[in-house]
């Protein structure tokens, strides 16, 4: 019986060998693939297994971590003043993943980023607890607070930039949400999130970066820049060739102004001061669609902007003549994000140089060493320094004795532009109130800001932009200037 016994022995050996080969295949060859599967909960467990690093504003964290019980996720994310900071931080939920900075900087915040390899190895030897690194933002707490308070219960958004560097100083969207309410993974969290998603006011929408609005009259700043850059008009006080009424090309209708304002052959300065649709519509038409697109693109239109959080592309459209004329006054298919309009104001304020907007100033290792520091970077030069200064004078006139008086700050030079964008078919819905502005001190311009308020009431003239949005912009600019003192 020994011969078959030996064969059975070989058979058993083959069985064991097959298992050995299989375990090698699974644990060596396929390990990476299995570890990166979406179904693999270990990835999320690991993400929340250690105290997450913080997002820092003005040297203080706006985030934190608390230990949770009764779950395989050890730590839960919490936010200080969540609704105010949510448009900056995004959320990081045990059950629903993460967004914005919490998502983009996850590697640093969890401490798993390759840049932290050295730190990780070091702490492995010193036996220190694993910790995430910090993300230091460019935001200005006072400005953010002023903007958030200014918008209050209104629906809208604020974006503020430092024109000289491109640093984002404020980024507010209302109504907002508190990411803390669904940071865990319980039923309560799911319900809270569902409620937010079902809310018709869309509190989780980041209006400052992800919503495009018709920019309305604030876009006249871009049109004016195009006129100066293309040499259509040289002096800002020279009379322009603009009849009143002015017929919209290829149509049978006249382009109307809001109210009875002196727009006939008005100079650029006066036209901006009174917000003349006829003057800027005609400029856009005189320059033509392509030149308008070129100038808008230099300001950042038609391109997604990464701050590193993505901002939707603003659109200056390729269009026919009447539509192009309408787009020149910020209507028709012209759409812009609040960030985009803040960039327009900041380019003018910074003597024509547009800086790349950014909100991460520094990434820190868990031991607080800087492993990345942002270097300011020029985005483009939409207009020459000389023309920028001309445009500044025009915008300052708007605030001094035009539609933007509400943005005045005593002892500070402020330039701005109001806007009321028509909204809905035949202007049926409530218009958007806009205001873009910048402040100037002896050492250049520390802040440019764009404000949009969605639910402005009935008042359909430019005063509503000045009335609703300008005070918010003023408060934000004042907060920045005060915090620099």
């Amino acid at each position, binding site marked *: 019986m020994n011969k*078959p016994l*030996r064969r059975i022995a070989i058979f058993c050996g083959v069985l064991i060998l*097959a298992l050995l080969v299989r375990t090698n295949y699974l644990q060596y060859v396929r390990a990476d693939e299995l570890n990166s599967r979406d179904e693999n909960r270990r990835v999320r467990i690991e993400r929340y297994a250690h105290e997450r690093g913080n997002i820092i504003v003005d040297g203080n964290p706006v985030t934190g971590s608390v230990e949770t019980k009764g779950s395989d996720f050890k730590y839960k994310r919490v936010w200080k003043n969540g609704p105010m900071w949510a448009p900056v931080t995004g959320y990081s939920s045990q059950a629903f993943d993460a967004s914005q900075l919490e998502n983009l900087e996850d590697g640093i915040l969890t401490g798993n980023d390759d840049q932290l390899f050295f730190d990780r190895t070091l702490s492995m030897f010193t036996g220190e607890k694993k910790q995430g690194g910090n993300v230091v933002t460019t935001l200005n707490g006072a400005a953010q607070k002023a903007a958030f308070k200014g918008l209050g219960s209104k629906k809208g958004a604020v974006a503020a930039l430092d024109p000289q560097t491109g640093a984002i100083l404020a980024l507010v969207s209302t109504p907002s949400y508190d990411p803390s309410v669904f940071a865990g993974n319980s039923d309560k969290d799911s319900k809270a999130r569902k409620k937010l998603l079902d809310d018709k006011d869309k509190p989780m929408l980041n209006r400052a970066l992800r919503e495009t609005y018709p920019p309305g009259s604030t876009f006249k700043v871009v049109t004016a820049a195009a006129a100066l850059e293309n040499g259509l008009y040289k002096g800002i006080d020279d009379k322009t060739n603009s009849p009143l009424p002015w017929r919209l090309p290829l149509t049978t209708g006249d382009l109307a102004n809001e109210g009875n304002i002196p727009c006939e052959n008005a100079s650029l300065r006066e036209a901006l001061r009174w917000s003349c649709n006829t003057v800027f519509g005609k400029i856009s038409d005189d320059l033509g669609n392509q030149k308008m697109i070129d100038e808008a693109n230099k300001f950042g239109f038609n391109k997604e902007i990464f701050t590193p959080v993505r901002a939707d592309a603003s659109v200056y459209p390729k269009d026919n003549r009447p539509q192009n004329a309408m787009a020149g006054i910020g209507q028709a298919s012209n759409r812009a994000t609040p960030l985009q309009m803040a960039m327009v104001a900041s380019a003018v304020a910074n003597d024509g140089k547009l800086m790349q907007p950014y909100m991460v100033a520094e990434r820190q290792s868990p031991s607080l060493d800087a492993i990345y520091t942002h270097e300011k970077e020029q985005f483009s030069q939409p207009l020459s320094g000389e023309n920028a200064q001309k445009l500044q004078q025009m915008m300052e006139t708007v605030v001094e004795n035009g539609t933007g008086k509400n943005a005045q700050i005593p002892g500070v030079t402020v330039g701005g532009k109001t806007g009321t964008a028509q909204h809905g078919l035949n202007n049926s819905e409530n218009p958007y109130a806009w205001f873009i502005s910048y402040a100037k001190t002896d050492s250049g311009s520390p802040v440019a800001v764009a404000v949009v308020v969605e639910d402005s009431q009935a008042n359909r003239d430019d005063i509503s932009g000045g009335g609703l949005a300008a005070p918010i912009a003023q408060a934000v600019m004042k907060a920045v200037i005060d915090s620099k003192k």
Partner: protein
Amino acid sequence: MSVVTNTTTIGAIDAPSRRNTELMMMVFAIAISVFAYANVGLAIDGKLPSGMFGYGAGLILLGGVAHLVVRKFAPYADPLLLPLATLLNGLGLVLIWRLDQSQRLIQRAESQYGAYSPDAPKQLLYSAIGVAFFVAVLVILKDHRILQRYTYISMAVALVLLVLPMFFPAVNGAKIWISLGPFTIQPGEFAKILIAVFFSGYLMVKRDALALASRRFMGMYLPRGRDLGPIITIWALSILILVFETDLGTSLLFFGLFVVMLYVATERTSWIVFGLLMSAVGAVGVASFEPHVQSRVNAWLDPFAKATWAQSEQLAQSLMAFGSGGTLGTGLGQGHSDLILFAANADFILATVGEELGLAGMMAVLLIYGLIVERGVRTALAARDPFGKLLAIGLSGAFAIQIFVVAGGVMGLIPLSGMTMPFLAYGGSSVLANWALIAILIRISDTARRPAPAPAPSPDAEMTQVVRP
């Protein structure tokens, strides 16, 4: 030139008993288990587990008793079998205890049954009963050939054991349990040994008839019906019962056992061909009408399929546990193999080995199982009687097939079929039956390796003895 010192012509040179080797390895096996226990405690709580001395003392007591009994009642037994079984049992206890600490499993138990009770203490109790079984077999069964007398009784008892679960409610879709008060017994594990005893007894008697008194047909030998009849009936019955109880792993095990033993008994390769043919027919037949089998096969083909995720999640989780372990593993107590939830410490305990001990640990554990099988086959080779040979190869073959089916199942090599890893997995029946199995193998190996008794002194011997000054 060397001086021949042993010039006597009578008596054999004593085979070394190797009992001290066994003792050394027992110490090693218990030390590894205790260190593993300490490791889990340090990893989970950051301190040595409070039960460590109790656990260590328990293992030493069990291992010590088993070793002393072997020393006394089976002095020439194979020295490896007992330490290997002890090591696996000890590691199994550690892994079960480690899974007891899992919040995820505790929560699941509380939400499902309203209460949670740790499994490790129960397993320690089962291990003690298992070792008692081991001791009883060695003490009572002085010679394995006695089992021959119980050929047909074994068959009857095995059939009763296999039929009984039909009268008890199904647990998780399989009717393989008998509940007696607080205890549940999985009779298939015991039936495995009884069927092996029956096959050995029957085949030993009938093997010549099966091998020789047959008609040649297409180059193969077909035995007469009256020789093959009983054994085929028993085999078919057990398979049928198991199919109806949807205990597929055990059916496969019995089938493999049947083919292996028939082949060894008759030495005819045609049996292998027969066996493969029958298994192919059986597998296709069962798979075509059994939805349970079909879902298992589908889950095996694509464990990550979205549509059947509910059925295949466990397997997918198990594969991810293996993947997460990688080469060196996460370390005991530091993995997440408890994501498998149901049966994490029973059918799927190997996933915990894979995740926390890694590829290195998996290979070590598989090799330990391989060594047990190898010692069993070696025992069969060494056995002097056909019954012992058949029984030893039957038991070790069954052991090997069980390991292949379970490990292959949780690693996605073959469709999952639900059996437990011997010694490692949680489960009373499994521990008890496998300790009994090891005891029988030890008994056979003792008989096989025992030196031949000294012949009766011959009066002539005196005269030819060399007289030394």
